[in-house]
């Protein structure tokens, strides 16, 4: 059975999410489940993993695909191991996020939405307001916020990654 793709830890995580919703509303646990699965799978989802989640939650597969393709935090193709998301929404844009993006793209020779060939860096395609407007422009690297960015500051953060 495809449930076999899910680790013990992920299953516990899913159970935890299921418990948060009323009976029969476990469809709502898909987001939490996919986050847990993606985290364990180098930051992206595969059809096998999504099918496993569907099987574990006893939902039609397509309902899991729907969620996975809807939310920008889920990736359905292999990506680099460090996820860099630059906010390009209004406050950040006014404060120069375009230059940050340009700098990143030049630095790694890839466009937003692509990963470096060595599999190290993934530039998330278009990120909307991450609620750190007061520190604009900002980016999120592997879930950690970095604010008031300049190209130099970006370099400093990213060059320390392994």
């Amino acid at each position, binding site marked *: 059975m495809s449930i076999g793709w899910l680790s013990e830890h992920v299953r516990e995580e899913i159970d935890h999410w299921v418990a948060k919703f009323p009976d029969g509303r476990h469809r709502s646990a898909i987001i939490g489940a996919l986050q847990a699965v993606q985290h364990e799978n180098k930051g992206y989802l595969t*059809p096998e993993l999504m099918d496993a989640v569907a099987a574990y939650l006893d939902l*039609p*597969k*397509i*309902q899991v*695909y*729907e969620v996975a*393709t*809807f*939310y920008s935090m889920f990736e359905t193709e292999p990506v680099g191991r460090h996820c860099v998301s630059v906010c390009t929404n209004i406050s950040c844009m006014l404060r120069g996020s375009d230059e940050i993006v340009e700098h990143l793209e030049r630095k790694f020779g890839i466009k937003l939405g692509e990963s470096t060939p060595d599999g190290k860096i993934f530039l998330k395609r278009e990120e909307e307001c991450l609620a750190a407007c007061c520190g604009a422009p900002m980016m999120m690297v592997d879930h950690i916020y970095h604010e008031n960015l300049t190209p130099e500051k970006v370099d400093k953060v990213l060059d320390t990654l392994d």
Partner: protein
Amino acid sequence: MSDDIVNIEINGQPVTAKKGQMLIEVTDRHETYVPRFCYHEKLSIAANCRMCLVEVEKAPKPLPACATPVMDGMKVFTRSAAAISAQKATMEFLLINHPLDCPICDQGGECELQDLAMGFGRDVSRYNDRKRVVKDKNLGPLVSTDMTRCIHCTRCVRFGQEITGIQELGTVGRSDQVEIGTYIERSVDHELSGNIIDLCPVGALNNKPYRFGARAWEMVAKPMVSPHDCAGSNLFGHVLRGKLKRVVPQDNEAINETWISDRDRFSYEGVYSEDRLMAPLIKVDQEWREASWAEAIEAVRDSLRTGVSHEGDALGVLVSPNATLEEMYLLNRIARHLGSQNLDHRLRRRDFSDQSSDPDVPSLGMPIASIDSLNGVLVVGSNLRREVPIIAHRLRKAALAGADVGFVNPEEYEYHFASAAYVDAPLDRFAEKLAGVVAAAAETTKTNVPGSISKILADVKVDETARSAARILSENDRSLILFGQIAARHPNFSAIRRLAAVLAELTGAQLGFLPEGANAVGAHLAGILPHRGPGGVELEEQGRDALGMLASPRSVYMLFGMEPDGDLADCALAEQALKAADKVICFSPFVTQSLLDCSDILIPLGTYAETAGTFVNIEGAWQSFDATASLVGDAREGWRILRVLGNELELPECDYQNASEVSDALAAELGSGAIDSALSSRAGISLQSTDVADLTLDVPMYAIDSVVRRGKALQSTQIAAETREGGSEA
């Protein structure tokens, strides 16, 4: 006036409405049209297309009529300047990404978007950017896709979630990237999936076999009745210059609501199969040659006269349960006239030992629509979704509304609702397992069972599943036993049916039958039975049943609308009997090698699409229809052929001018005598285990009759593939 009624005003007209109703239901009822795409009477409300915006007094913005509940004193304007400008604006947005390919779109002429664009669209687009393009999906052999045309109304998605219970399509992606699809390529496989073609308001989902076949406005729609199962779904056949181009549902709330099965929709391809018999054929000195109709009828007459001259018993007549009532009545008259009582339509039945207890007609015993409101149903021996998809849909509705539904089946078929009990009844122990349920019912209801079976029940094991199956019937006041085709084909049928009857008696449930074919009830009325004449009148001299007339071979056979190598319980037996016969006369739309091998005269018969006739469904509704399409080749309507044959055989009073005169004659013969759908079974039974190892009791959905077997698209579906491999089903 009760609290449930509210008064509102639509365009200045005062009307009343039920509390909680959505505005669009009220406007629809008062024939005030509000444009819509996503709203559909049979589906949940999504309110995502925004086409139905109307002005409501005191509301700051236009409101969607499909998702706005009525409130007392509401004043609604559907055609005011504000309403129309909102509707026009929505239309403009919808058209931004919709291709302008109506001239090459099959939906053209019957497209809701096209129609509304005529009413609400601008004639010049203000949008100058690039339109988005969406890749087409491959959804299998039945539904074609042009996904760029999709307006994301999600009717097709909700259909899967709500009607079939298995969501096959979904909305993948988001915002301007959203697409309807399956994500991982796969076909839509549910046996009702074809309905998404009708639901899709635009040309995104269409009829694949029909693709580019005709334009909607060139065709004439003619009412038809489903020829494949006992529900008798209402259809429209769309005909272009005499040719049936496609089949769509005809709304009938009492039977099929607004749905039809894929089998009913796509089987018409079989009508135009390459192996249609184009002219009468006669075998002379082992050589086949074409014959004129006059010659052919004479040959049939002579074969019957000579073959049957001494005794009628020499003739055996096997009739498809899909034949029309008119054909059946005439066959009955001809056979009896020749002195033969060897007449049967129960082609796949194996056990006739208790046929004297048969009900007059094998009916459901209640209107089809009342299945929805049952609260307990036990399905006995039926792969229901495959046998009668429309009844399976009704059953699912009942289950979702809270009914307990249980099964006594050889296999746990998927129903997409939770079953209240599943009694695993392998074919060789089927009767025994059902007896367990009967014993459980006797135990719970503390009733004595008839002596003849009490002994048997004493020996069967009653387990918890049997008890819960029995409770489904005994603890619900509106309960039904649905007796299916696997049970009817079982070698132990008589015992199984007797047990079901006792179970019904004990629990107060109704016993309803789901006989094979579109017209099994009609066959009973018309007397296509060896032991009964029209109307269930018991015959003094009884004939041989379908199996009996093959087991002891006759010298002359008439086969009507059936294929001896596909439509019988024991095809090998038939082959032997037919080869040994002096004359075999086949009335068939098709010609196959095996028909050529076994028969002597082949008469080209019009199919269901090419003949007028009547089918009687399991609720006893006589549904008559006219010929939809022109006859292929030199084929003729069955009732006409038989009428001429009747004249040749000097059958008295056989000068019918049209099909309805034939059915009127039968109706007159039946008189007003009540038809008894109750079983009169009193026979003793035995539970010997039967050897069923090599029997196919679950006849595949798309192998059930000669027309379906020739439906190309149906034969390439997943359902057909799975049943060919004998694997399990989704």
